[in-house]
Each structure stands twice: as C-alpha cells, then as structure tokens.
C-alpha cells in the first residue's frame, strides 16, 4: 500500500512543480515506497517524458541562429571535467538527469529504458525483437558472436597496452639514467592560458641536446604531434617534433638539437611534421632555460 501523503504529491513531483527541497524529500521518500516508485516509473515518468513532443513544431526565426550561438560562445568556455557525480539510488528522478546546474530546482523528463516509445525507437525495437521466442535463438547467436568479437578485441587491446607499457618503461629508464647523470638537466615547462590542464618537462643531455619531453597527461585527441621551440630575442627556432602516441606521456626527440643558444623553450600542438613558426594560440607549455 502506498503512502497516501506521497501519492498526493506525485503529480507535482512528476511535472516538476516542486521546490528543490520538496523534490529531494520526495525522491528520498519514494525510494522507500516500492509500490509508488513502480507506478511512477511505469505510468508517470514515461508519459511526462513524451509530453514535450506535444508542442507543435514551429519555424525558427531566421536570425535566431546567429544570436543564440553568439550569446552561447561569448559565455564562459567549457572545460573538460569529470562527469558530475550522479545521485545514487534506484530511482532516477527526472531532475537528476536533466539538470544542468545544481541550483535548478525542478524535475524534467528524460529518457530511460522503460520510458521511450518502444515501437519507434530503433534500439527499443531491437530489444523487442529479441524478446520474441522465434527470434530468441537468433538473438543468442548474435550475442555469442558479439561476445567473441569483444573478447578478441580485449585480448588485442591488452597486447597493445603491454607493448605501450614496455615502451614507456624503456623511455622512463632512459630518463632516469639522464637524471642520475649529474651533468644532465631539465627545463620545467609550465602551462600557458591555452592549456590549463597539464605541465611538462624537457630533458637534455650533458651536451645540451634535448632528448626527451614528458607531459603530465596526454594531449587533446586532435593533436597529432607536438613541437619544441627555442626562443632567443623573440625569435622562435624549431628544436624537435615529437610524435604523439595515444596516452603515452614521454617522447623521444628524433633529431636532438643543441639548446645552448636559447633562453626559453616552448611547446606547441601541431599537425604531423610540425610547423615553420609557432602559432601563439597553440603554445601550450613554456619555460625559461636554466643557467646550470
């Protein structure tokens, strides 16, 4: 038997017409009322999720596109961050899923496996198809094939991982040897405003030939190479181009270059092969040469 007090409020909760405090209290109480929770999940949520579709489609104002996009892009730029923590519990309230800002205070419709239109969503159709007895065998066969492919892929991925680890270990050993050499030095590279997410180090050997760089994390997926530049009196000279390799964070220079004559190092993301001159907007790290 459902709690009558809760049942009284379920419409306001489902339609999003509650304050944030009321909504949280209701959601917590709903977890302890399986009967009402089931009703919410099977009757209220699926229908309310579909209600936005009842709005008749209207034509967009011609100039709105530019105004909206311009306003959005002038705002604070997005940053890559871990996904916001999701509220726990068995009942996903619409609010938890649809909220963009924690301060927003009302539930809203969202999709869920139970609530989308089963007949019109291609994925739901697939599920329904394999639920039928005549297709069950075929479905199982397909699942078996998918499982085999997945296992093969996982084995291959693991082999690649092992190879990368060995490569990384080898590079790390070389760097450790350099550091152990009392004549070896390094230049700390600090992030510029273009790349707030990491830092790096350039290592050079006793003859001041740069041999490695290390990064605190992988570069953006869009970057294929990074390029080290030496700066002297405002002039940039390309010192080395490093080929990016997935998640690896240390790279060996293909053609070591002498650093003696520079007073600052910079690192840029580049197209394959590097560039003739650095573009200021792609300067991600920089650091002064040390007199040692």
């Amino acid at each position, binding site marked *: 038997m459902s709690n009558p007090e809760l049942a009284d409020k379920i419409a306001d909760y489902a339609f999003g017409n509650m304050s944030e405090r009321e909504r949280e209290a209701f959601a917590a109480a709903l977890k302890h009322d399986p009967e009402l929770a089931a009703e919410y999940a099977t*009757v209220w949520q699926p229908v309310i999720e579909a209600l936005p579709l009842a709005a*008749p489609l209207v034509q967009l104002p011609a100039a709105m596109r530019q105004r909206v996009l311009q306003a959005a892009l002038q705002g604070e730029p*997005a940053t890559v961050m871990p996904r916001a923590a999701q509220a726990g519990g068995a009942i996903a309230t619409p609010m938890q899923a649809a909220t963009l800002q924690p301060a927003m205070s009302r539930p809203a419709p969202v999709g869920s496996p139970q609530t989308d239109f089963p007949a019109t969503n291609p994925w739901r159709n697939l599920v329904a198809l394999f639920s039928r007895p005549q297709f069950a065998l075929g479905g199982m066969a397909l699942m078996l094939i998918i499982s085999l492919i997945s296992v093969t892929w996982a084995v291959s991925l693991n082999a690649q991982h092992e190879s990368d680890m060995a490569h990384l270990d080898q590079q790390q050993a070389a760097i450790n040897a350099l550091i152990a050499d009392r004549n070896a030095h390094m230049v700390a590279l600090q992030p510029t405003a273009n790349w707030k997410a990491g830092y790096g180090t350039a290592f050079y050997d006793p003859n001041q030939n740069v041999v490695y760089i290390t990064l605190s994390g992988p570069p953006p997926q869009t970057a294929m190479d990074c390029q080290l530049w030496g700066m002297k009196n405002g002039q940039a000279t390309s010192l080395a181009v490093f080929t990016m390799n997935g998640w690896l964070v240390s790279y060996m220079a293909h053609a070591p270059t002498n650093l003696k004559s520079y007073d600052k190092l910079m690192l840029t993301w580049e197209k394959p092969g590097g560039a003739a001159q650095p573009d200021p907007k792609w300067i991600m790290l920089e650091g002064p040469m040390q007199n040692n």
Partner: protein
Amino acid sequence: MGNDPDWPKQMESVDYQSLNDQQLMMRLAERDADALTAIYDRYARPIYSLAIKIMGKPERAEEVVQEVFIKLWRKPYSYDAQRGAFINWVLGVTHNQAIDELQRERNHERTISHSLPSDGDEEQSIDVADPGPDPAEQAWYSVRLDIMRVALTQLPAPQREVIELAYFSGLTQVEIAARLAEPLGTIKTRTRLGLQKLKVILEEEGLRSER
C-alpha cells in the same frame, strides 16, 4: 600551423552531421564551437517549439533557447548518455528553464495570465522537422512527435487541460484547482486518469507503428 587558424578542425575534416549526439557533446566538452552549431542545427526547432508553447511569445521563447545553449556550452558534461536520449534530456532542460522563467514572472507580478493552449494550437503545427543529418534518428523523432500530438488530442478535454496546465504552465495541483474552481481531489483524479490514458494510447500507437 601558423598560417592555418582553423586547425585542427580543417586538419581533421570532421563531418559534424555524421556525428551522433554523444559524439557532439564530447566535442563540446573540448570547446569545439562547431559541435554547438551542429547541435543547434539538429535540435533548435523542437527546443524552440517547446519553449514557445510554454512561454507564449517568440522573444521570450528565444531567451529560453539562448539560456539552454549557453548552459550546453558551459556544462556539456552534464549530459549522461546512459540516462537516455539526448533529445529527451535537452527538452527536459528546456522545460526546466521555461517553467523557471514563468514562475519568476509569477512571483514578480503575482498574476497569472498565461492562456491555455487551445485545440487551435495543433493547426499551428506545420510539418515535420527539417531533414537532419541522421535520417533514421530524425524519422524516429518525427514519428514520436506525431504520436504524441495525436495522443494528447484523444484525451477528454478536462484531463488534457489539467495535464497541459501542469506541464506547459508549471502549475501545481493546488493552483490548477484554484484556477479551474474545482476540488483538489477532482484535479488529482483527472491528472492520474489522463496520464494513464495517455500511456495506453502511446503504447497502442507504438505497437501500431511497429507492425
């Protein structure tokens, strides 16, 4: 690279129209403005349509759309694909934004003048959404639109009225009872019956289109 200000977009030759919603949102998280444009081109129309249904006036609807896209740009990681389709989520965000605006206005003016959507609204319906880059997805969305619109019109008027007041006008059950001068229990019963009936209609329509 110094002579190529649009790198890396040009370098990659990304076909944004071919990317799915989740891929676009991932690019948004990488501050890719073209991804935002692609999302706008794909979904601005249903978003704007919902906003105008709730807000009533085009200029206020546009403000809602603008807020939604500002939030998308600022916090793209708020979308979790595991929780459902992007279109449902972004329409939910739009609904939140629009209802918040309405309630702010009500708190300010203390008057409720929002008119009920009438049957004539359906005549405002023009056609299906512009053909998008993902025909299957667009077709699926168009079918859903049609089903939902038809389903709502099949409800008895009193039941449809309370559902529309609750969803499109953001009124609580108590407020609806006061507005319609009906007992609260009647409003709750109508709402519940309306929802149950809608569910049955939607399921039937769904099954019909499956065949």
